[in-house]
């Protein structure tokens, strides 16, 4: 999976798993903030996303403080996934 494919899959998972009905996954910007003002997600969404990523993409996401920087945007999550997979 390329970084672009991972980003695309992540956007699909975000809309489906976080129940963002009516949102077009493709309209989520790669570098837009996911939390707070951006998509309006919060820490519970981050936990859900981490669980789904581990299950569907096989990558265990960081927890606690480290999670904060990784979960800041679709690009940041995708970069982490690609990095872990290539390690």
């Amino acid at each position, binding site marked *: 999976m390329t970084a672009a494919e991972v980003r695309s899959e992540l956007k699909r998972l975000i809309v489906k798993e976080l129940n963002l009905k009516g949102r077009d996954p493709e309209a989520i910007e790669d570098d837009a903030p996911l939390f707070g003002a951006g998509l309006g997600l*919060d820490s*519970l969404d981050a936990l859900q996303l981490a*669980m789904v990523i581990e*299950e569907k993409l096989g990558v265990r996401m960081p927890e606690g403080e480290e999670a904060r920087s990784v979960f800041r945007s679709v690009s940041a999550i995708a970069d982490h996934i690609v990095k872990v997979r290539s390690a």
Partner: protein
Amino acid sequence: MSAPLWVTGLGLITPLGVGVEATWSRLVRGDRAIRDVSLFDAAGQRAAVAGQVDGAALSARAAGLGLAVDPAGGVAAPWSRTSAMAAVAAAEAIEAAGIDVRAERVGLVVGGTTGGMFENEQVLARLHAEPECRELLVQMLSHPLTATGDCLEQRFGPFARVRTLASACSSGANAIVLAAAWLLAGDVDVVVAGGADGLCRLTLTGFNALGALDPEPCRPFDRRRRGTSLGEGAAFVVLERADGAGRRARGPRPLAELAGWAAGAEAHHITNPAADGALVASLIARAIACAGLAPGDVDYVNAHGTGTPLNDAMEATALRRALGGDVERIPVSSSKGQIGHTLGGAGAIEAAITALVVSRRTLVPTAGLDEPDPALSLVHVPHAGREVPRVRAALSNAFGFGGMDTVLVFTEPELARRRDARAARAAPPASTARGPAREAGAVVTGAAVFGACGLLGTAECAALPERRFDLDGAVDPDPHLSAARARRLDHASRLAAVAVQRALADAGAGADVETGVLLGSAYGNVDASAAFMHRIFDKGPRTASPADFPNLVPSSPAGHVSIYLGLHGPTLTTADLAASGESAVVQAVQLVAGGFAARLVAGAVEPRSDIVGRVLAALFAHTPSQSRVARTDTAAAVVVESELGARAAGTRILARFRQVLEWRGDAAGPLASLSPPGGGRAECVLPRPDETAKALIARSGWAACPVRCCSPSIGESDALGAVAVAVAAARIASGLLDEALVIGIARGRGYAIALGR
């Protein structure tokens, strides 16, 4: 001024010990009972430590009650570990107070969230995978939350009244608040109130999924705190009016006085507390005012203190806001570093501990607190407890998922009354006032039903029994809700939100009156719990969904509704099998008429469920008509407020509650005290065709009245009692009737609700 409410007995079972003295001595020493989980396989869990009740000690004490509990955990249905712990604690409390349950008017209120989950997790997972499975189903007799109250009723009863109450981790505290309402109304002379929750895989896995558990034993208020630890246990308190019949006969010596309380909802988030602590601060201030006291009178706070970074920060902020400069003086501690978070039991266990702190003039510590978080800036009791000259008044905080928060105040007996300076109590706000509105009674100002009938507002509810709806169609709440704001609501919460929203809209209820939610739910979220457990057993604990877990808590629909609609009043859930709707409405009338809530939207919700339909409804069936009619998604709600309040707000009164009755077992003539209709047009509205209800009516003053039934119109569900009340109120409001009687019966229990113009 009403009589003081005295704590005259306590029963306590915690991971520290079985019994008050066993727990207390270790509590004061600062012992910690949080260690590796052995009750079940906790392999693969992020945190695998918890506070477990000693199996051998529980087994020994239960044997004394004639109850066989395997020290390794097993107990035969309808009992569960939770119920066994509840029985042990209740027995100790009843004995300590010296009450005679059968001879006095004694009520029982049981708070809890997990009930028989531990015993049923494997059965549920199997039912999820094999829907036709019929083995082991008798085990599910222990599954409903009501099983605990029913077991205690069977062991110690009959009680004058029994209620099962859930508000997540404030359940045990709200059980005590309801006890106060019953006592002040004079409905009973004594109440045995408390809570119990057993440890189970579902809660350990769910809290781990939320990252809410510290892998090490939790450290409330510590700079390095990383989460809470789960625990298990039970506590009951015996409360009685100082001027009650029991008091006169037995002359009990009070341990402490239950002097104040306040309950409300943050309406903020299903798992995270609001960082500003505004709601909690206002509840602390109101509870202290309710007790007729000021922050200067408070000598101790038993904090909710979970040890999660967010809770402890919020709670410290709230304490500072509410107590002002006195926060620099008042010692604060959390018992969770020693016993863990006992969830539905916590509010009762920590209330009992707080009453003991007052009674024994000894502070209990926060164990595990080695490096106090300087940001919290509280006066701590680290490591071990200590004796103090007096504890005049003490607070016990309990906060639940969905922001359902409750604060209790225990004092030395008659602390407020003894003090001339404060003899004239400041008038507390409506939601904590002691009974001024009772004379004016409770009224219905809005009603709605949502289900196979679509969404019916007040006007349309009146004709419901005369119409027939498609019972197979899907019920879609989404067109009635904002997709973005409702994204966390599961189907049950959505159904409930639609009904509550419409009932409030029809009442034209202004936001200026504090509004709470009280929903009945017979079995909670069974199908989703089964799916959750199946996934954990199948794929491991790391696949547990953090988003789904909060929706498995029995009180989650009420919590979601309060958040979705921004309602800050008391947010409660009650369970009573097929009479859960009736139970919720009756409890709302009791709380509103007693001045404990200004306005409650009361009702019930039941989503169509495979497991309820195939298993639970059959196990707990009361009348054959329950299985003859298709089960449907149903939610119904009525707005209950005080007549004085409705008049002051200029809200239209649809109907007045004339009388509410409730009974257990096959009581002889439960309607004996029911007033006959006054001579106008009167009808009986039944949730479902029910020969027992019809026989009761035939022997009552209502015998000549026509009987209408709801289930043939909109299908069978355990929410039908709320439908019947909505229909009855609407028929009176529309001028079809002058009076109506709703009779709801479920296995071993019944309710009668008389409404008039």
